[in-house]
């Protein structure tokens, strides 16, 4: 007779095999990291550039340069670029983050020789036409107007601003900032930011010698011509800790609480990831159990350790009914204090450790995710041993260690508290 009360036996995950990238270097010294794996005949080609020379007097210059990279080159219009990328079933993406700007091509291997030259053209010869810039600015001003009606959007930008001050990490975009942009400055910035000395290439998916040779032929002779300086972020957290932005007719309040903290390079970071998981980092977390699953105040609440090149912070975010706003803050503080004063029970810590190992294993789904693991450490000056030590920490950390960490890093009175709605 089947006994359904009895859980099947299970195994602990002991080791996790992350596929390692192979490093090669193009003639012009661009480092290329290769992760060759996977069944499908496709490849992701990423060009990553460190962010440089962010200037508060023209705060959108860098991000707009990145966003408009597909709007035309000296030889092709934006329409032609889009037409060709789409014709070959490829995907061309640009992304601007706190620390890096990237240009990514996803393509089937059979079309690599058709699609890669387009990317080369974009990276070397972009022109940022005035007309497209005007459309871009207008449409993004409109988008901003809509976003400013969203409580969680407003909470996030206020939070970043009070935590970091007016720099790339904390700046609050204003509609008028788009008026400072023009083709000439975009082009000048493009030349400074997008060139070999500032570039790292990642190839993942089905990467063969032929693909590497194409990369060498197309990008190995690309020359660096200008001098540039990487961003140096000057952190200026506000003194005031409490912020409330009233929105009339709001049904919910967006809450964002947090504190400057360590980033991935710090020896405590892995342990803080474990502590965060217990607190608000997974579906079974203390915050979810209390504030969603016990009280029904919210659809979701979570916390996280955010890591950037020159900063780190710990954050708790949720949206709750306006009538339970204060009650939610009380419960969050209570859960934090419990972690500072009571040891995490053995069963709960075991569960969290198992969950984290399973989650790390599950995050290695395909060639892209294996490559992403490397990217997540490489730009911090770390290597694969980060993951070895992460796994070691997860396996060996004790409830006592975690209580010490909670007391070391979490001080409720020092938390920034931003509420919108």
């Amino acid at each position, binding site marked *: 007779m*089947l006994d*359904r*009360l009895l*859980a*099947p036996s*299970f*195994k602990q*995950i002991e080791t996790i*095999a992350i596929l390692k990238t192979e490093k090669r270097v193009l003639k012009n010294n661009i480092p290329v990291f290769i992760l060759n794996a*996977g*069944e*499908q005949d*496709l490849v992701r080609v990423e060009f990553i550039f460190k962010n440089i020379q962010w200037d508060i007097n023209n705060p959108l210059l860098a991000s707009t340069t990145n966003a408009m990279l*597909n709007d035309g080159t000296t030889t092709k219009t*934006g*329409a032609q670029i*889009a*037409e060709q*990328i*789409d*014709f070959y*079933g*490829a995907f061309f993406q640009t992304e601007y983050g706190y620390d890096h700007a990237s240009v990514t091509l*996803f393509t*089937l291997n059979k079309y690599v020789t058709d699609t890669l030259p387009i990317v080369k053209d974009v990276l070397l010869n972009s022109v940022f036409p005035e007309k*497209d810039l*005007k*459309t871009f600015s*207008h449409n993004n001003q*409109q*988008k901003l*107007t*809509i976003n400013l009606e*969203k*409580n969680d959007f407003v909470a996030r930008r206020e939070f970043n601003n009070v935590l970091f001050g007016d720099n790339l990490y904390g700046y609050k975009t204003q509609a008028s900032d788009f008026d400072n942009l023009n083709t000439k400055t975009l082009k000048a910035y493009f030349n400074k930011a997008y060139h070999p000395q500032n570039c790292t290439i990642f190839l993942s998916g089905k990467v063969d010698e032929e693909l590497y040779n194409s990369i060498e032929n197309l990008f190995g002779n690309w020359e660096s011509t200008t001098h540039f300086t990487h961003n140096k972020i000057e952190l200026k957290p506000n003194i005031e800790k409490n912020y409330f932005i009233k929105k009339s*007719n*709001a*049904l*919910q309040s967006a809450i964002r609480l947090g504190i400057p903290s360590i980033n991935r390079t710090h020896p405590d970071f892995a342990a803080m990831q474990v502590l965060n998981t217990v607190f608000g980092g*997974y*579906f*079974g977390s203390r915050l979810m159990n209390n504030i969603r*699953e016990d*009280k*029904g*105040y919210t*659809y979701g609440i979570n916390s996280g350790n955010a890591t950037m090149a020159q900063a780190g912070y710990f954050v708790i975010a949720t*949206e709750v*009914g306006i009538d339970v706003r204060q009650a939610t803050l009380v419960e969050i503080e209570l859960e934090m204090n419990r972690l500072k004063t009571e040891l995490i029970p053995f069963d709960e810590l075991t*569960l969290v450790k*198992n*969950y984290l*190992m*399973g*989650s790390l*294993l*599950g995050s*290695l*789904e*395909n060639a892209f995710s294996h490559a992403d693991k490397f990217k997540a450490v490489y730009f911090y000056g770390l290597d694969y041993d980060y993951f070895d030590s992460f796994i070691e920490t997860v396996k060996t950390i004790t409830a006592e260690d975690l209580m010490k960490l909670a007391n070391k890093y979490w001080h409720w009175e020092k938390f920034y508290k931003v509420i919108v709605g």
Partner: protein
Amino acid sequence: MVNYKKFILDNGLRVLVHEDTTTPMAVLNILYDVGARDENPEQTGFAHLFEHLMFGGSVNIPSYDEALQLVGGENNAFTSNDVTNYYITLPAVNLETAFWLESDRMLDLAFSAKSLEVQKNVVCEEFKQRYLNQPYGDVWLKLRPLVYTKHPYRWATIGQKLAHIEDAKMADVKAFFAKHYNPQNAIVVVGGKVNFDEVKALCEKWFAPIPAGVKYMRNLPIEPEQTQEIKETIYADVPLNAIYMVFKMPGKTEDNYPTVDLITDILSQGKSSRLYRNLIKDKPLFSDIKAYNYGSLDTCMFVIEARPNQNLSLEDAEKAIWNELNALKTELVSEVELTKVKNKYESTSVFSEMSLLDKAMNLAYSELMGDANLINTELEKYSNVSANNIKHLANQIFTQQKATTLHYLAK
């Protein structure tokens, strides 16, 4: 190409197994053939609320989530107008735990009163967060009843109103479970580093003892053909005017679906698509415009969603949209443009094969549509679409009298 093997248990449960040895993980996906379209019109939002209750403990297992997290697994679920889909990903060595958990909640739930109370609150907060407290968030609550007069697609998955969720009673929950949550109404897909024989044995062990239950026979009203244009205007606290134009189109299982899906792509897939190119880039008439379709199983919605620039009248904005639709009705799409959208469809499906979970979900959905192998044959249907098919369908679908237009305007 996604490989799979299929078998059916004596109680009617359909099982598909997809072996993929490139991953150390396994997926167990269960699709229940019940969605918001199967709800009582007086109790909308129930299928989705019920999905939340599926995590409130089953007859032998008090906490679903904890038991799964303990073995390194994760799970989630979603409800649509057509289906409710649950999935687990976990290290393949611990696959049996997924069988234990999923079979127990298919067998019977704990029906905890506390869980019902709490999840009613959680879903009401979800309702507010996603539909009521967002600019334009309630648009589909307003639009669906304009587009559908008879078919239960006239309400959204979240429900028509908060009161329907607040009023849910335990007796209704139990009745819903008995009606829809049994082996005959479910499709299980097990994928990843698994072995067919092993999966079969686990199915026999955990799922085969569950009583077959009564097969739910769906008998939904058919949405009559629209013969008159519908226009509506609402004013709300939003910064910009928006236009929503909806046309009814074939459902996902119908022969003409791929043609209309490619029309959607011609209009709105990628930066070379017509709406983006013509109405945002070449002539800056809109700050945002896109076309999409819902891919629903019954009569489906084709949607154009647009935010006209302030200097453009609503009338001229609609004219500009109609120009694009009329072009599809009068001119044959060029070979190059047609090849382009087909190539994009192909590459999108190859890229989706990189995700084990996507493959498992697609297999379940294909089986629901009549044949799991559709996952492999769908591409051919798309590649057979001709320029003439496109022109023909555009003429059938895009007519003034079959249009439903909502002006969602700033107060």
